[in-house]
């Protein structure tokens, strides 16, 4: 299970890693392609992977009685999908479905955590990458809460 390094080198998300750190991440990840409609994970399932989308689109959703599956967020090229693997109990909080043909780097997150435990320098850089992505997601979500485009009338 190895991602070609050329794929990781062009990801802005991983730009802060050194070449050898990227090589380590490549060693625990692979490239997958998904058909539209593929269900990637379900709420409550074991969170042992995360995805960096290269092309296509994935929707994060949750089940609401009476409304069915409600989509909360789309994840597009260059963006990170999946956070629940970071901390115990490693259980998916939401579900995710591929909505258009998608290619993604899939990371074995248990192996990634072990890499980070063994190499604190890599662990620190990974934390920074994840925090930055998380911060962007949090800020964008907060702005959406403002409902800026509502009609004031």
């Amino acid at each position, binding site marked *: 299970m190895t991602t070609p390094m050329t794929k990781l080198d062009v990801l802005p998300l991983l730009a802060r890693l050194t070449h050898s750190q990227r090589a380590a991440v490549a060693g625990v990840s692979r490239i997958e392609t998904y058909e539209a409609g593929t269900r990637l994970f379900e709420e409550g399932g074991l969170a042992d992977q995360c995805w960096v989308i290269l092309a296509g689109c994935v*929707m994060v959703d949750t089940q609401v009685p009476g409304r069915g599956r409600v989509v909360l967020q*789309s994840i597009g090229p260059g963006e990170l999908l999946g956070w629940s693997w970071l901390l115990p109990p490693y259980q998916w909080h939401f579900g995710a479905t591929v909505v258009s043909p998608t290619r993604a780097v899939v990371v074995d997150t248990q192996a990634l955590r072990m890499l980070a435990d063994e190499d604190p320098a890599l662990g620190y850089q990974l934390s920074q990458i994840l925090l930055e992505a998380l911060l962007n997601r949090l800020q964008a979500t907060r702005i959406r809460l403002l409902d800026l*485009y509502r009609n004031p*009338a």
Partner: protein
Amino acid sequence: MTWLPTPYRVVTRTVETHDSATLVLRPVAESLPTFRPGQFAMLYAHGVGEVPISVSGIPGDGTLVHTIRAVGAVSRALHDAAQGTVLGARGPFGTAWRLDDVEDLLVVAGGIGLAPLRPVLTHPARRTVLVAGARTPQDLLYEKEIVSLSDVEAVLTVDRGDHDWHGRIGFVTEPLASVPLDPACTTALLCGPEPMMRFCARTLLGRGVPAGRIQVSLERNMQCGVGLCGHCQLGPMLLCREGPVVPYPVAEPLLLAKEL
């Protein structure tokens, strides 16, 4: 003649969304000078009042094209104006989008903010990227038209999706953070709610787009359009003259001040 509107007749009215419509106005006799993208007209609805509305199209045949969202009494009256109605128009007023030396064009719009940016989508550029946000799929303006523009790479995103929506769900800053750009060669034009423009500008600065190449379209109460009524002040600017299109480095400190 500053205050005297020129009569224009509504020749077509196209419903865009549940609260927005596009009017094509033809001069009854005399016509106003040609508008540039980003400029606005003061549109008058008989007996109701007058509001500033940007041009959302420049067909070059003497007609005026405006997309109007009904948000108050006057904009409601304009939005509802049926074919044949005579409206008054004054203008062109304000600054236009600066489009000289454009290499890559990045157009970022939120909600009705897409209307004043529609005329630039066909401006010649090496590459044109549109990132547009709306509340729901039903609130997206000009969706069919945008998809048909083969030279525009469009990323449409909504705050809340539905079962039929297969585009993006999220705020415009998210695709903006990852859309492929050549930052040093990018001219970014932003129009939407003020917080949206601040956050987008910050995202673009973070990606290396030079501040001087980011332009924003600002809005304040406008009643005269010619610097006489005093309502549209934003710090040192009279936005009807020095705006609505303002370079981001000029706008940023003013947008950060509270209640300015």
